C-alpha cells in the first residue's frame, strides 16, 4: 500500500506539466483558444499525441502505450491544473476506452492507433435531453438495416461533438443498449456545436436514419457503466488539479491584496476559510488517488468512482465558491483566472452525475456492509 508515484510516473507528470504550461501559460491564452470552434488547440492536441499521451491506456498491440489508470489520472490532473480544454478524457477514456473494451480486432486496429496518433478524435455521444446520468440509451434507437444499422434520435450535450471525426453512440436495441460507430460525415447526421460556460464546446447531435456500424454487439450497458466510472475517476483528477490551482491562486491573492492598509492574510476569518479549503482538497485528493488505484488493481471501479465523485463534488463546490468569495469582485470576472476554475468545477460536477446522485447510489448499498474497508473487498480484488 503506497501513494507514491514511481520515477516514470513522476517523469510523466513533469513532462505533461511542462507541455501544458507552455500551451496555457496564462488564462488569456486559454480564453483566446476557447472562444472559437473547436474550443481547443489542435497543435497542442498533436503535441499530446507526440508525447504518447493519447494512447496511454491502450494495449501496445492496439497501438497504445500499455499504461494504466494511474498514468491517465496524472495527465487529467495536469489538465485540470491549467484548465487545458483539449478533449483528453472524452477521446481517450470514454470513446477510446469503449472501443478498446468492446471493439472487434479490426475496429481497434483501425481506431486505437489513429486516436493514439491524434489523427482521429472520437467522442462518446451518450447524454440525451430526456435522461439523467444513466448508463442506458432511450432517446436514440438503433434499427438493423441489412448488415448495418441506422440510428435515429438526439444526443445532447455531447462534449466536442461537433469537432469529432468519429462518434461512439449509445442507442436502444432489443434487450438493452448497444454501441455504434458513426462517421462525422455520415448521412442524416446534423451536429450543432456551441460554447459552454466553462470554455469547452459541446453539441446537439441529431441522427435521422443515420448509418452506423455496431461496436461489438448486443447489450453493452455494463461496458458503458464501466467506461463512465473510469471517466468519473479521471474527471475527479482533473478536478483535483483545478482545485489545487484555485486554492494556490486564492492563497497568493490573500498574501498580496491589500484592504484597510494590510494584506488580506491578516484577516483570520479569511485564512481559516482557506485552511478549510485545503482540508476539502486533501480529502478529495486521497479519494481520487485511491479510486485510480482501485481501477489499477482491478477492484470494483464503479463503486470506487461513486465514492470519488461524491467527495470531489462536495470539495469542488466548496473550493469553487470560496475561491471567488475570498477574491471578491475580481473573482466573478472572465478576465481573471480563478472564476474559470469555479466554472469548470461546476461543469465537471454535472457531466456524469453530481454529489447527490453519487450519494444516492452509495445509500442503496450502506446495508450491504458493516464497515467500509478501502483496502479490502470489493475494492482490492
Amino acid at each position, binding site marked *: 500500500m503506497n501513494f507514491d508515484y514511481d520515477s516514470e510516473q513522476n517523469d510523466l507528470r513533469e513532462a505533461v506539466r511542462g507541455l501544458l504550461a507552455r500551451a496555457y501559460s496564462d488564462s488569456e491564452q486559454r480564453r483566446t483558444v476557447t472562444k472559437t470552434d473547436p474550443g481547443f488547440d489542435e497543435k497542442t492536441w498533436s503535441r499530446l499525441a507526440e508525447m504518447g499521451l493519447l494512447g496511454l491506456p491502450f494495449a501496445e498491440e492496439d497501438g497504445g502505450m500499455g499504461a494504466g489508470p494511474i498514468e491517465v489520472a496524472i495527465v487529467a490532473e495536469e489538465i485540470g491544473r491549467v484548465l487545458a480544454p483539449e478533449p483528453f478524457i472524452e477521446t481517450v477514456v470514454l470513446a477510446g476506452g469503449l472501443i478498446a473494451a468492446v471493439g472487434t480486432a479490426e475496429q481497434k486496429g483501425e481506431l486505437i492507433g489513429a486516436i493514439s496518433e491524434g489523427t482521429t478524435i472520437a467522442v462518446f455521444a451518450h447524454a440525451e435531453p430526456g435522461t439523467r446520468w444513466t448508463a442506458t440509451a432511450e432517446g436514440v434507437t438503433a434499427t438493423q438495416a441489412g448488415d448495418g444499422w441506422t440510428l435515429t434520435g438526439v444526443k445532447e450535450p455531447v462534449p466536442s461533438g461537433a469537432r469529432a471525426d468519429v462518434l461512439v453512440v449509445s442507442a436502444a436495441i432489443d434487450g438493452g443498449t448497444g454501441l455504434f460507430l458513426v462517421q462525422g460525415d455520415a448521412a442524416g447526421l446534423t451536429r*450543432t456545436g456551441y460554447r459552454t460556460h466553462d470554455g469547452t464546446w459541446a453539441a*446537439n447531435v441529431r441522427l435521422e436514419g443515420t448509418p452506423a456500424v455496431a461496436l461489438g454487439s448486443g447489450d453493452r450497458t455494463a461496458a458503458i457503466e464501466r467506461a463512465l466510472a473510469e471517466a468519473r475517476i479521471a474527471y475527479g483528477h482533473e478536478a483535483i488539479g483545478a482545485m489545487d490551482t484555485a486554492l494556490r491562486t486564492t492563497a497568493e491573492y490573500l498574501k498580496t491584496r491589500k484592504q*484597510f492598509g494590510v494584506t488580506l492574510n491578516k484577516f483570520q476569518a479569511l485564512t481559516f476559510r482557506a485552511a478549510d479549503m485545503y482540508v476539502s482538497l486533501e480529502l478529495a485528493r486521497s479519494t481520487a488517488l485511491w479510486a485510480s488505484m482501485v481501477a489499477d488493481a482491478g477492484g470494483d471501479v464503479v463503486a470506487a468512482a461513486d465514492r470519488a465523485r461524491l467527495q470531489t463534488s462536495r470539495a469542488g463546490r466548496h473550493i469553487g*465558491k470560496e475561491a471567488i*468569495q475570498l477574491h471578491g469582485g475580481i473573482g*466573478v470576472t472572465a478576465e481573471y483566472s480563478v472564476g*474559470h476554475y469555479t466554472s469548470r468545477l461546476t461543469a465537471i460536477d*454535472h457531466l456524469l452525475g453530481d454529489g447527490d446522485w453519487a450519494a444516492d447510489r452509495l445509500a442503496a448499498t450502506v446495508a450491504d456492509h458493516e464497515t467500509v474497508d478501502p483496502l479490502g473487498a470489493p475494492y482490492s480484488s
Partner: protein
Amino acid sequence: MRLQLSPELEAFREEMRTFFTTQVPQEIRDTVAAHRHPTKAQYVEAQQVLNAAGLAVPHWPVEWGGRDWTPLQRHIWREEMQLASVPEPLAFNASMIGPVIAAFGNQEQKERFLPKTANLDIWWCQGFSEPDAGSDLASLRTTAVRDGDDWVVNGQKTWTTLGQYADWIFCLVRTDPTAEKKQRGISMLVFPMDSPGVTLRPIELLDGGFEVNEVFFEDVRVPAENLIGEENRGWDYAKFLLGNERVGIARVGATKRLIAQAKEHAQAITSGGRPLAEDPRMAARIAELENELVALELTALRVVANSADGKPHPASSVLKLRGSELQQAATELVVDIAGPLSLASFAEDGSDVPDWARVATPSYLNYRKVSIYGGSNEVQRTIIAGSILGL
C-alpha cells in the same frame, strides 16, 4: 402582535399586484423571468411605466414624486414587483443619487435632476470603487483639483454597473489630499459620461455578459455647480446612500420566483422513471430552502414593521447576508435540477435543451456576486459582530 395585514394593506398589496402584472409589458417581465439581461430600452420603458403611475420613487420626498408610504408599504411594493418579475427602478437613480440630491442638493440641482432621474431620462451610474479601494472605499485615489470654475478630475473607477448605458455618473473624488482623516477630503461630483476625457472599458463576467465597467478620467473638466452638497462632505453622502442600498436587499420576492421556477422544472425533469420533484431528497432540499426563505421574509417584515421610528432594526443586517446566501442557493438548486443539461449554457438554435437549463449555470456563476457587492458578507458579519454583539 398581529399576523394579518390590515384591510387597507391587503387592498394596497392587491393594487400593486394588479398593476405590476397587467401594466408592465409582458415581454419585459418574461425577459426578467427567463434570467436574461433586459435591454436598455426595456429598463427605461419599465421605469417610465412605473413612474407614470407614481410607483418609481415612492420613497422620495413627496414633492419629487414620493408617496409618503410606511416601510411596510414600501416592502410590499418591492416584493410584489420582484414576484411579478418587473425590473426594479434603476437603483443608481431611485435608491442612490436621487435621494442624495433630494437630501443634500441645492434647489437648482433638484429641479434639474430629480424629475429626469425618476423617469430614467437620465441614466445614472456609480463611480465609487477603485482598483485598490473595494471594501475599503475611503482609500480612494481619484482626484478633483479646482481650476477656475471647474473641477479637473483624474483617476480610475471600477465595478461601474451598466456604465455602458449611462448618461451621467456620480463620483466620489478626493478634493483635499491633506485631510488627516482620509474619510474627510472626499467630495461628490456628477458629470456626463460623454464629457471629454471619460473613457469606459466593459469587463466581461463569467456568464459572458457585460454589466460592470472600468471608467477612466483624464483631465475631465466638471463645472463647479456639479458638486453635490458641500465640498469634502462626500463621505457622509456616500454612507447615506449606501444605507439606502441595503433597503430591500433581502430580495425575497425574487428568490421566491426562482424557487417557484425550480419546482416547475423539477416536475419536468425525469429521474429514475419519475419526476425529479418527487425524489425525497430533492423535495426535502426544496422544502428546507422554502423554509429558510419564509424565515428571511418574516425577519424582513419584523424589520420594516419596527423601523417606522427611523432607526434601523438591529436584525436588518441579517437581510443582506442571508438574502444573498438564499439567492445563491436557489440558483444552485436550478443548476442541479438541470443536471447534465446545464452544460449547454450557450446553445442557440438547433439545441433540444430548454432555455431555463441553458441559463442555469451562467446565472449561478453570475450570482456569486451578490455576496460580494453592496457590502460583502464579510462586511455584514463585521457589522453584526461589532455593532450588535459588541465584539
